[in-house]
Protein backbone atom coordinates (compact mmCIF):
# COMPACT_ATOMS: atom_id res chain seq x y z
CA UNK A 1 0.00 0.00 0.00
CA UNK A 2 1.53 3.27 -0.98
CA UNK A 3 0.49 6.56 0.41
CA UNK A 4 2.77 9.07 -1.26
CA UNK A 5 3.02 12.32 0.65
CA UNK A 6 5.75 14.13 -1.25
CA UNK A 7 7.13 13.74 -4.74
CA UNK A 8 10.42 15.39 -5.63
CA UNK A 9 11.45 15.45 -9.28
CA UNK A 10 14.49 17.00 -10.96
CA UNK A 11 15.16 18.99 -7.84
CA UNK A 12 18.04 21.47 -8.20
CA UNK A 13 19.41 24.09 -5.88
CA UNK A 14 22.05 26.62 -6.90
CA UNK A 15 23.29 29.23 -4.46
CA UNK A 16 25.39 32.19 -5.59
CA UNK A 17 26.06 30.36 -8.84
CA UNK A 18 27.34 27.20 -7.11
CA UNK A 19 25.28 24.05 -7.66
CA UNK A 20 24.58 22.56 -4.22
CA UNK A 21 22.04 19.90 -5.12
CA UNK A 22 21.33 18.57 -8.58
CA UNK A 23 18.74 16.26 -10.03
CA UNK A 24 17.27 14.80 -6.88
CA UNK A 25 14.37 12.40 -7.46
CA UNK A 26 12.49 10.54 -4.75
CA UNK A 27 9.12 10.00 -3.10
CA UNK A 28 8.25 10.13 0.56
CA UNK A 29 5.40 8.08 2.00
CA UNK A 30 3.22 9.19 4.84
CA UNK A 31 4.56 8.05 8.21
CA UNK A 32 8.14 7.64 7.01
CA UNK A 33 11.05 8.49 9.26
CA UNK A 34 13.38 9.78 6.57
CA UNK A 35 16.92 10.58 7.61
CA UNK A 36 18.95 12.87 5.41
CA UNK A 37 22.58 11.99 5.97
CA UNK A 38 25.92 12.97 4.56
CA UNK A 39 29.18 14.65 5.53
CA UNK A 40 29.49 18.35 6.36
CA UNK A 41 28.94 20.52 3.33
CA UNK A 42 26.96 17.92 1.41
CA UNK A 43 23.87 20.11 1.31
CA UNK A 44 21.67 18.53 3.99
CA UNK A 45 20.56 21.81 5.49
CA UNK A 46 20.20 23.43 2.08
CA UNK A 47 18.00 20.53 1.04
CA UNK A 48 15.69 20.98 4.03
CA UNK A 49 15.56 24.75 3.66
CA UNK A 50 14.69 24.59 -0.02
CA UNK A 51 11.93 22.06 0.54
CA UNK A 52 10.54 24.41 3.18
CA UNK A 53 10.62 27.26 0.68
CA UNK A 54 13.29 29.16 2.59
CA UNK A 55 15.74 28.87 -0.30
CA UNK A 56 15.01 29.02 -4.04
CA UNK A 57 15.01 25.79 -6.06
CA UNK A 58 14.27 24.52 -9.53
CA UNK A 59 12.27 21.41 -10.23
CA UNK A 60 9.10 19.80 -9.05
CA UNK A 61 7.96 19.55 -5.46
CA UNK A 62 4.51 18.06 -5.05
CA UNK A 63 2.70 17.64 -1.72
CA UNK A 64 -0.21 15.22 -2.08
CA UNK A 65 -1.67 16.35 1.20
CA UNK A 66 -1.70 19.83 2.65
CA UNK A 67 1.49 19.95 4.68
CA UNK A 68 1.35 21.36 8.18
CA UNK A 69 5.00 21.65 8.97
CA UNK A 70 6.87 21.81 12.23
CA UNK A 71 10.48 22.90 11.82
CA UNK A 72 13.39 22.70 14.22
CA UNK A 73 16.37 24.31 12.49
CA UNK A 74 20.04 23.74 13.11
CA UNK A 75 21.57 26.07 15.66
CA UNK A 76 18.35 26.54 17.59
CA UNK A 77 20.40 26.46 20.76
CA UNK A 78 20.12 27.98 24.18
CA UNK A 79 22.61 30.75 23.51
CA UNK A 80 20.28 32.11 20.87
CA UNK A 81 17.53 32.66 23.45
CA UNK A 82 19.59 33.96 26.37
CA UNK A 83 19.45 37.56 25.19
CA UNK A 84 15.81 37.83 26.09
CA UNK A 85 14.02 37.00 29.34
CA UNK A 86 12.03 34.04 28.08
CA UNK A 87 10.53 31.35 30.24
CA UNK A 88 9.37 28.04 28.79
CA UNK A 89 5.85 29.48 29.01
CA UNK A 90 6.91 32.55 26.99
CA UNK A 91 8.45 30.26 24.39
CA UNK A 92 5.06 28.71 23.74
CA UNK A 93 3.43 32.14 23.77
CA UNK A 94 5.63 33.16 20.82
CA UNK A 95 3.81 30.56 18.74
CA UNK A 96 0.49 31.50 20.39
CA UNK A 97 0.12 27.99 21.81
CA UNK A 98 -2.39 27.67 24.63
CA UNK A 99 -1.09 26.83 28.09
CA UNK A 100 -2.88 23.48 28.43
CA UNK A 101 -1.66 22.45 24.99
CA UNK A 102 1.89 23.41 25.96
CA UNK A 103 1.74 21.50 29.25
CA UNK A 104 0.30 18.45 27.51
CA UNK A 105 3.20 18.32 25.07
CA UNK A 106 5.81 19.00 27.74
CA UNK A 107 4.59 15.95 29.63
CA UNK A 108 4.55 13.99 26.38
CA UNK A 109 8.31 14.54 26.07
CA UNK A 110 8.80 13.67 29.73
CA UNK A 111 9.18 17.14 31.22
CA UNK A 112 7.44 18.07 34.45
CA UNK A 113 5.17 21.09 34.83
CA UNK A 114 7.55 22.91 37.13
CA UNK A 115 9.91 23.87 34.31
CA UNK A 116 7.11 25.96 32.79
CA UNK A 117 8.13 29.12 34.63
CA UNK A 118 11.87 28.61 34.34
CA UNK A 119 14.05 30.59 31.96
CA UNK A 120 14.41 28.60 28.74
CA UNK A 121 18.01 29.70 28.22
CA UNK A 122 19.06 28.11 31.50
CA UNK A 123 17.47 24.67 31.32
CA UNK A 124 19.87 21.76 31.02
CA UNK A 125 20.84 20.92 27.45
CA UNK A 126 18.67 17.81 27.41
CA UNK A 127 15.68 19.60 28.93
CA UNK A 128 15.98 22.40 26.42
CA UNK A 129 16.09 19.98 23.50
CA UNK A 130 13.03 18.14 24.80
CA UNK A 131 11.27 21.44 25.27
CA UNK A 132 11.98 22.27 21.62
CA UNK A 133 10.50 18.95 20.53
CA UNK A 134 7.38 19.70 22.59
CA UNK A 135 7.35 23.21 21.12
CA UNK A 136 7.38 21.85 17.59
CA UNK A 137 4.76 19.18 18.30
CA UNK A 138 2.37 21.54 20.09
CA UNK A 139 1.33 23.25 16.84
CA UNK A 140 0.02 19.85 15.66
CA UNK A 141 2.10 19.40 12.52
CA UNK A 142 1.69 16.37 10.28
CA UNK A 143 5.26 16.70 9.02
CA UNK A 144 8.38 17.39 11.05
CA UNK A 145 11.66 18.77 9.73
CA UNK A 146 14.46 18.37 12.25
CA UNK A 147 17.95 19.61 11.47
CA UNK A 148 20.51 17.96 13.74
CA UNK A 149 18.14 17.97 16.71
CA UNK A 150 20.65 16.30 19.03
CA UNK A 151 23.89 17.95 17.98
CA UNK A 152 24.18 19.88 21.24
CA UNK A 153 23.53 17.01 23.66
CA UNK A 154 25.40 13.87 24.60
CA UNK A 155 24.85 10.45 23.02
CA UNK A 156 22.56 9.04 25.70
CA UNK A 157 20.40 12.17 25.62
CA UNK A 158 20.39 12.01 21.84
CA UNK A 159 19.23 8.41 21.77
CA UNK A 160 16.37 9.14 24.13
CA UNK A 161 15.21 12.05 22.00
CA UNK A 162 15.12 9.83 18.93
CA UNK A 163 13.25 7.02 20.68
CA UNK A 164 10.79 9.65 21.79
CA UNK A 165 10.44 11.06 18.30
CA UNK A 166 9.90 7.62 16.81
CA UNK A 167 7.23 6.73 19.37
CA UNK A 168 5.38 10.02 18.97
CA UNK A 169 5.77 9.85 15.23
CA UNK A 170 4.18 6.40 15.10
CA UNK A 171 1.32 7.26 17.44
CA UNK A 172 0.42 10.50 15.62
CA UNK A 173 1.21 9.29 12.11
CA UNK A 174 3.83 11.96 11.62
CA UNK A 175 6.17 12.02 8.68
CA UNK A 176 9.60 12.96 9.91
CA UNK A 177 12.48 14.45 7.92
CA UNK A 178 15.56 14.27 10.07
CA UNK A 179 19.04 15.59 9.27
CA UNK A 180 22.06 13.97 10.87
CA UNK A 181 25.52 12.70 10.08
CA UNK A 182 25.30 10.06 12.79
CA UNK A 183 25.09 6.61 11.18
CA UNK A 184 23.90 4.91 14.40
CA UNK A 185 20.75 6.98 14.36
CA UNK A 186 20.09 6.10 10.76
CA UNK A 187 20.16 2.36 11.51
CA UNK A 188 18.33 2.56 14.81
CA UNK A 189 15.42 4.83 13.94
CA UNK A 190 14.96 5.56 10.26
CA UNK A 191 12.56 3.81 7.93
CA UNK A 192 14.25 5.46 4.96
CA UNK A 193 17.45 7.28 4.25
CA UNK A 194 18.52 9.87 1.72
CA UNK A 195 22.27 10.29 1.50
CA UNK A 196 24.06 13.21 -0.02
CA UNK A 197 27.73 13.85 -0.64
CA UNK A 198 29.86 16.71 -1.82
CA UNK A 199 30.93 14.80 -4.89
CA UNK A 200 27.39 14.14 -6.04
CA UNK A 201 27.05 10.51 -4.88
CA UNK A 202 23.68 9.85 -3.41
CA UNK A 203 21.31 7.10 -2.43
CA UNK A 204 17.73 6.71 -1.34
CA UNK A 205 15.92 3.78 0.22
CA UNK A 206 15.60 1.53 3.25
CA UNK A 207 18.82 1.79 5.31
CA UNK A 208 19.52 -1.94 5.62
CA UNK A 209 19.14 -2.40 1.85
CA UNK A 210 21.00 0.53 0.42
CA UNK A 211 23.68 1.43 2.94
CA UNK A 212 26.21 -1.06 1.63
CA UNK A 213 29.89 -0.58 2.47
CA UNK A 214 30.44 0.59 -1.11
CA UNK A 215 27.77 3.24 -0.86
CA UNK A 216 29.04 4.46 2.51
CA UNK A 217 32.50 4.58 1.05
CA UNK A 218 31.25 6.73 -1.78
CA UNK A 219 29.36 9.06 0.52
CA UNK A 220 31.92 9.53 3.26
CA UNK A 221 35.26 8.00 2.39
CA UNK A 222 35.54 9.59 -1.02
CA UNK A 223 35.77 12.92 0.71
CA UNK A 224 38.12 11.73 3.41
CA UNK A 225 40.41 9.92 0.98
CA UNK A 226 40.73 13.06 -1.05
CA UNK A 227 42.14 14.95 1.91
CA UNK A 228 44.40 12.12 3.04
CA UNK A 229 45.83 11.93 -0.42
CA UNK A 230 46.68 15.58 -0.39
CA UNK A 231 48.33 15.37 3.02
CA UNK A 232 50.47 12.37 2.10
CA UNK A 233 51.93 14.19 -0.80
Amino acid sequence: MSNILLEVKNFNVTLDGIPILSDLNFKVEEGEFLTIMGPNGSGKTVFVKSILGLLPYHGELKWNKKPKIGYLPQGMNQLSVRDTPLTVKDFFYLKKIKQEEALKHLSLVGLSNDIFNKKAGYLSGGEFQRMLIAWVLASHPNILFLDEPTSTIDIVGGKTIYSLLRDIGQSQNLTIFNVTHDLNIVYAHSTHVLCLSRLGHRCYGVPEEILTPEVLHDIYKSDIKFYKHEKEN
Partner: protein
Amino acid sequence: MPNQLMLSLISGIFISGAAAYLGTIMLSKKMTVVTDPLGHLALPGAALAMIYGFNLSLGAFPFVILGIFIIWLLELKTKLPMETLTAIVFAAGIGIAFLFLPIDEAEAALIGDISKIGFIETIVTIVLGIAVFITVNQSYSEIMLANINEDVAKVEGINVKFYNLIYLLSVAVIVALGVNLVGGLMTAALVAIPAAAAKNLSITLVQYRWLAIIFGIISAIVGITASTFTGLPAGPLVIITSGIIFLITIPAAKA
Protein backbone atom coordinates in the same frame (compact mmCIF):
# COMPACT_ATOMS: atom_id res chain seq x y z
CA MET B 1 3.77 77.78 33.73
CA PRO B 2 2.05 74.68 35.13
CA ASN B 3 0.27 74.15 31.83
CA GLN B 4 3.52 73.98 29.91
CA LEU B 5 4.96 71.54 32.44
CA MET B 6 1.87 69.38 32.02
CA LEU B 7 2.28 69.29 28.22
CA SER B 8 5.99 68.50 28.54
CA LEU B 9 5.35 65.75 31.06
CA ILE B 10 2.57 64.13 29.05
CA SER B 11 4.60 64.20 25.82
CA GLY B 12 7.68 62.94 27.65
CA ILE B 13 5.76 60.05 29.20
CA PHE B 14 4.31 58.92 25.88
CA ILE B 15 7.59 59.22 23.99
CA SER B 16 9.71 57.55 26.65
CA GLY B 17 7.18 54.80 27.45
CA ALA B 18 6.68 53.81 23.81
CA ALA B 19 10.43 54.03 23.13
CA ALA B 20 11.17 51.75 26.08
CA TYR B 21 8.61 49.20 24.89
CA LEU B 22 10.06 49.19 21.40
CA GLY B 23 13.47 48.95 23.08
CA THR B 24 12.64 45.52 24.50
CA ILE B 25 12.41 44.22 20.93
CA MET B 26 15.44 46.16 19.72
CA LEU B 27 17.53 44.85 22.59
CA SER B 28 16.82 41.24 21.72
CA LYS B 29 17.52 42.03 18.05
CA LYS B 30 20.81 43.60 19.23
CA MET B 31 19.75 46.70 17.37
CA THR B 32 19.47 49.40 20.03
CA VAL B 33 22.65 51.01 18.81
CA VAL B 34 21.07 51.52 15.39
CA THR B 35 18.82 54.18 16.87
CA ASP B 36 21.85 56.38 17.50
CA PRO B 37 22.87 56.90 13.87
CA LEU B 38 19.22 57.33 13.05
CA GLY B 39 19.11 60.06 15.67
CA HIS B 40 22.18 61.60 14.09
CA LEU B 41 20.52 61.35 10.70
CA ALA B 42 17.60 63.16 12.24
CA LEU B 43 19.92 66.07 12.99
CA PRO B 44 19.92 67.57 9.47
CA GLY B 45 16.13 67.45 9.55
CA ALA B 46 16.05 68.98 12.98
CA ALA B 47 18.44 71.66 11.74
CA LEU B 48 16.12 72.53 8.85
CA ALA B 49 13.21 72.56 11.27
CA MET B 50 15.04 75.07 13.45
CA ILE B 51 16.02 77.28 10.53
CA TYR B 52 12.47 77.37 9.16
CA GLY B 53 10.77 77.33 12.53
CA PHE B 54 8.74 74.12 12.55
CA ASN B 55 8.64 71.16 14.92
CA LEU B 56 11.86 69.19 15.37
CA SER B 57 10.15 65.81 14.99
CA LEU B 58 8.49 66.88 11.78
CA GLY B 59 11.85 67.87 10.31
CA ALA B 60 13.52 64.73 11.63
CA PHE B 61 11.00 62.19 10.37
CA PRO B 62 11.79 62.20 6.61
CA PHE B 63 15.50 62.01 7.36
CA VAL B 64 15.01 59.05 9.69
CA ILE B 65 12.93 57.28 7.06
CA LEU B 66 15.71 57.97 4.57
CA GLY B 67 18.26 56.60 7.05
CA ILE B 68 16.29 53.42 7.61
CA PHE B 69 15.90 52.98 3.88
CA ILE B 70 19.66 53.44 3.39
CA ILE B 71 20.55 50.91 6.11
CA TRP B 72 17.98 48.44 4.77
CA LEU B 73 19.24 48.85 1.21
CA LEU B 74 22.92 48.61 2.19
CA GLU B 75 22.28 45.47 4.20
CA LEU B 76 20.49 43.93 1.25
CA LYS B 77 23.15 44.91 -1.30
CA THR B 78 26.38 44.52 0.66
CA LYS B 79 25.53 41.91 3.28
CA LEU B 80 27.76 43.91 5.63
CA PRO B 81 26.88 43.56 9.30
CA MET B 82 24.40 46.05 10.70
CA GLU B 83 26.98 47.58 13.03
CA THR B 84 29.32 48.47 10.15
CA LEU B 85 26.52 50.06 8.18
CA THR B 86 25.52 51.86 11.32
CA ALA B 87 28.99 53.37 11.65
CA ILE B 88 28.91 54.51 8.02
CA VAL B 89 25.50 56.10 8.25
CA PHE B 90 26.38 57.59 11.64
CA ALA B 91 29.32 59.57 10.35
CA ALA B 92 27.47 60.70 7.25
CA GLY B 93 24.54 61.93 9.34
CA ILE B 94 26.73 64.00 11.64
CA GLY B 95 28.67 65.40 8.70
CA ILE B 96 25.57 66.51 6.86
CA ALA B 97 24.02 67.88 10.04
CA PHE B 98 26.87 70.24 10.73
CA LEU B 99 26.80 71.55 7.17
CA PHE B 100 23.31 72.88 7.86
CA LEU B 101 23.25 73.37 11.55
CA PRO B 102 24.15 76.75 12.97
CA ILE B 103 26.38 75.39 15.74
CA ASP B 104 25.53 78.19 18.19
CA GLU B 105 21.84 77.38 17.96
CA ALA B 106 22.28 73.65 17.75
CA GLU B 107 21.41 72.91 21.35
CA ALA B 108 17.76 71.97 20.83
CA ALA B 109 18.60 69.62 17.96
CA LEU B 110 21.40 68.01 19.93
CA ILE B 111 19.80 67.51 23.33
CA GLY B 112 16.09 68.04 22.76
CA ASP B 113 13.60 70.69 23.76
CA ILE B 114 10.52 69.18 25.32
CA SER B 115 10.03 72.19 27.62
CA LYS B 116 8.62 74.29 24.79
CA ILE B 117 6.28 71.69 23.26
CA GLY B 118 2.91 73.12 22.19
CA PHE B 119 -0.62 71.80 22.66
CA ILE B 120 -1.13 70.44 19.15
CA GLU B 121 2.33 68.85 19.17
CA THR B 122 1.48 67.16 22.46
CA ILE B 123 -1.71 65.72 20.99
CA VAL B 124 0.21 64.43 17.95
CA THR B 125 2.84 62.94 20.26
CA ILE B 126 0.19 61.15 22.33
CA VAL B 127 -1.44 59.73 19.20
CA LEU B 128 1.85 58.55 17.72
CA GLY B 129 3.05 57.16 21.06
CA ILE B 130 -0.13 55.12 21.41
CA ALA B 131 0.10 54.04 17.76
CA VAL B 132 3.62 52.72 18.27
CA PHE B 133 2.62 50.99 21.50
CA ILE B 134 -0.34 49.23 19.88
CA THR B 135 1.68 48.30 16.78
CA VAL B 136 4.49 46.80 18.82
CA ASN B 137 2.05 45.09 21.16
CA GLN B 138 0.07 43.48 18.33
CA SER B 139 3.14 42.17 16.56
CA TYR B 140 5.21 41.33 19.63
CA SER B 141 5.12 37.52 19.50
CA GLU B 142 5.67 37.46 15.72
CA ILE B 143 8.66 39.83 15.82
CA MET B 144 10.15 38.08 18.84
CA LEU B 145 9.83 34.65 17.21
CA ALA B 146 11.53 36.00 14.09
CA ASN B 147 14.26 37.45 16.35
CA ILE B 148 14.93 34.06 17.82
CA ASN B 149 14.77 32.23 14.54
CA GLU B 150 13.66 33.80 11.30
CA ASP B 151 13.29 30.48 9.46
CA VAL B 152 10.97 29.04 12.10
CA ALA B 153 8.87 32.20 11.92
CA LYS B 154 8.64 31.84 8.14
CA VAL B 155 7.65 28.18 8.32
CA GLU B 156 4.99 29.14 10.89
CA GLY B 157 3.54 31.37 8.18
CA ILE B 158 4.69 34.70 9.57
CA ASN B 159 5.38 37.34 6.93
CA VAL B 160 8.77 38.34 8.29
CA LYS B 161 9.34 41.11 5.73
CA PHE B 162 6.04 42.74 6.64
CA TYR B 163 6.81 42.65 10.34
CA ASN B 164 10.30 44.01 9.72
CA LEU B 165 8.79 46.92 7.86
CA ILE B 166 6.32 47.60 10.65
CA TYR B 167 9.11 47.40 13.17
CA LEU B 168 11.38 49.77 11.24
CA LEU B 169 8.55 52.28 10.81
CA SER B 170 7.97 52.17 14.56
CA VAL B 171 11.67 52.84 15.07
CA ALA B 172 11.45 55.79 12.69
CA VAL B 173 8.49 57.31 14.56
CA ILE B 174 10.19 56.82 17.93
CA VAL B 175 13.46 58.37 16.77
CA ALA B 176 11.63 61.36 15.31
CA LEU B 177 9.61 61.83 18.51
CA GLY B 178 12.69 61.14 20.61
CA VAL B 179 14.52 64.07 18.98
CA ASN B 180 12.03 66.38 20.69
CA LEU B 181 12.65 64.82 24.09
CA VAL B 182 16.38 64.06 24.15
CA GLY B 183 17.74 65.46 20.86
CA GLY B 184 19.58 63.66 18.10
CA LEU B 185 22.60 62.57 20.12
CA MET B 186 20.99 60.41 22.76
CA THR B 187 18.07 58.64 21.10
CA ALA B 188 19.61 55.21 21.52
CA ALA B 189 19.58 55.69 25.28
CA LEU B 190 15.85 56.24 25.16
CA VAL B 191 15.25 52.75 23.75
CA ALA B 192 18.23 50.91 25.19
CA ILE B 193 18.51 51.88 28.85
CA PRO B 194 14.99 51.12 30.17
CA ALA B 195 14.99 47.80 28.30
CA ALA B 196 18.44 46.92 29.63
CA ALA B 197 17.41 47.77 33.20
CA ALA B 198 14.22 45.75 32.78
CA LYS B 199 16.20 42.80 31.46
CA ASN B 200 18.35 42.88 34.58
CA LEU B 201 15.31 42.32 36.77
CA SER B 202 13.17 40.05 34.61
CA ILE B 203 12.68 36.34 34.40
CA THR B 204 9.58 36.42 32.22
CA LEU B 205 8.72 38.26 29.04
CA VAL B 206 5.76 39.96 30.73
CA GLN B 207 7.98 41.41 33.47
CA TYR B 208 10.50 42.54 30.86
CA ARG B 209 7.89 44.40 28.81
CA TRP B 210 6.18 46.13 31.72
CA LEU B 211 9.31 47.04 33.65
CA ALA B 212 10.81 48.66 30.56
CA ILE B 213 7.72 50.81 30.08
CA ILE B 214 7.64 51.75 33.77
CA PHE B 215 11.33 52.67 33.78
CA GLY B 216 10.86 54.73 30.62
CA ILE B 217 7.95 56.64 32.15
CA ILE B 218 9.71 57.22 35.49
CA SER B 219 12.77 58.58 33.66
CA ALA B 220 10.62 61.04 31.72
CA ILE B 221 8.73 62.24 34.82
CA VAL B 222 11.81 62.63 36.99
CA GLY B 223 13.94 64.18 34.23
CA ILE B 224 11.37 66.72 33.09
CA THR B 225 10.35 67.66 36.62
CA ALA B 226 13.96 68.06 37.68
CA SER B 227 14.51 70.24 34.65
CA THR B 228 11.86 72.77 35.73
CA PHE B 229 13.39 73.04 39.20
CA THR B 230 17.02 73.22 38.17
CA GLY B 231 16.72 75.06 34.88
CA LEU B 232 18.92 72.40 33.31
CA PRO B 233 17.80 70.91 29.96
CA ALA B 234 15.29 68.03 30.27
CA GLY B 235 16.82 65.68 27.68
CA PRO B 236 20.07 64.93 29.51
CA LEU B 237 18.23 64.70 32.83
CA VAL B 238 15.83 62.06 31.42
CA ILE B 239 18.75 60.01 30.18
CA ILE B 240 20.69 60.42 33.43
CA THR B 241 17.63 59.29 35.39
CA SER B 242 17.30 56.12 33.34
CA GLY B 243 21.05 55.62 33.64
CA ILE B 244 20.72 55.73 37.43
CA ILE B 245 17.81 53.26 37.31
CA PHE B 246 20.01 50.95 35.26
CA LEU B 247 22.85 51.24 37.79
CA ILE B 248 20.46 50.37 40.61
CA THR B 249 19.30 47.22 38.79
CA ILE B 250 22.82 45.89 38.20
CA PRO B 251 23.23 44.07 41.55
CA ALA B 252 19.97 42.24 40.89
CA ALA B 253 20.95 41.27 37.35
CA LYS B 254 19.79 37.79 36.42
CA ALA B 255 22.72 36.13 34.71
